[in-house]
C-alpha cells in the first residue's frame, strides 16, 4: 500500500528564518511526486512535480528536492504570505488511474 508521511504537522517560523518540510513516501514504483500549496478554505494549488531521485525544482523562495525515499520542500527567507498548508502526494506506477496518494500536510505559519 502506498504511504505518504509529512513532517512536521505544523511549523512556526519568523520572517526570514529558512527551514525545510519533509515528505517520506513508500510506493511500489514512483511515477511522480507532487507538491501543492493550500490556503485556508481553498483547494490545493499545484507547485511542483518531481520524477526521479536527484531532481530539483525551484519557484521563488521554494525549492523541492527528491531522493528515493523522501522529498524536501526548502523555504528560503520566508515571508508571511508563504503561510499555508503544504501537501505532498505521490503517483505510483502500479496504481490504477494514476491516482495520487496524499500526505497529511504541513501547516506553515510565518510571523512578521
Amino acid at each position, binding site marked *: 500500500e502506498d504511504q505518504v508521511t509529512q513532517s512536521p504537522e505544523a511549523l512556526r517560523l519568523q520572517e526570514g528564518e529558512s527551514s525545510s518540510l519533509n515528505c517520506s513516501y513508500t510506493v511500489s514504483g514512483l511515477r511522480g511526486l507532487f507538491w501543492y500549496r493550500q490556503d485556508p478554505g481553498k483547494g490545493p494549488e499545484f507547485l511542483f512535480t518531481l520524477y526521479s531521485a536527484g531532481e530539483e525544482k525551484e519557484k521563488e523562495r521554494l525549492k523541492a528536492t527528491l531522493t528515493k525515499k523522501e522529498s524536501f520542500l526548502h523555504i528560503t527567507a520566508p515571508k508571511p504570505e508563504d503561510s499555508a498548508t503544504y501537501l505532498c502526494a505521490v503517483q505510483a506506477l502500479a496504481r490504477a*488511474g494514476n491516482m495520487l496518494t496524499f500526505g497529511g500536510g504541513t501547516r506553515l505559519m510565518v510571523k512578521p
Partner: protein
Amino acid sequence: DVKVTQSSRYLVKRTGEKVFLECVQDMDHENMFWYRQDPGLGLRLIYFSYDVKMKEKGDIPEGYSVSREKKERFSLILESASTNQTSMYLCASRKGGGWGYTFGSGTRLTVV
C-alpha cells in the same frame, strides 16, 4: 488556465437528506476526481471517472455515488447524508495521460 468550479462553497444539510455536489471543468479533461479532506486524515479519494459514464471507486466510496453524464461535469451524491459526512469536499480534474491535478475551491458540507 484550467478552471474547476464547484457549485457551492458552503452547504448545511440535515441528516437523511439527499445531497448533490456539482463540479464543472472547462478544459475538456478526461479524468475527474472527488476527494474529502478531514483534519489529521488528509485528502482521501472517494470516486474518480475516466470518461463520460465511467466511474471507479476510490478508497472511501461507502455512502457516496457519482454521476458523469457529460464530460465537463462530475457530480457527487450523498444518498442519505449522515453527520460523519461533514467534511470539506474537493473536486479535481486532469487531462488523460497527464500528471498533476487541478483542484476546485472546495465545498464545506455540514450535516446536522
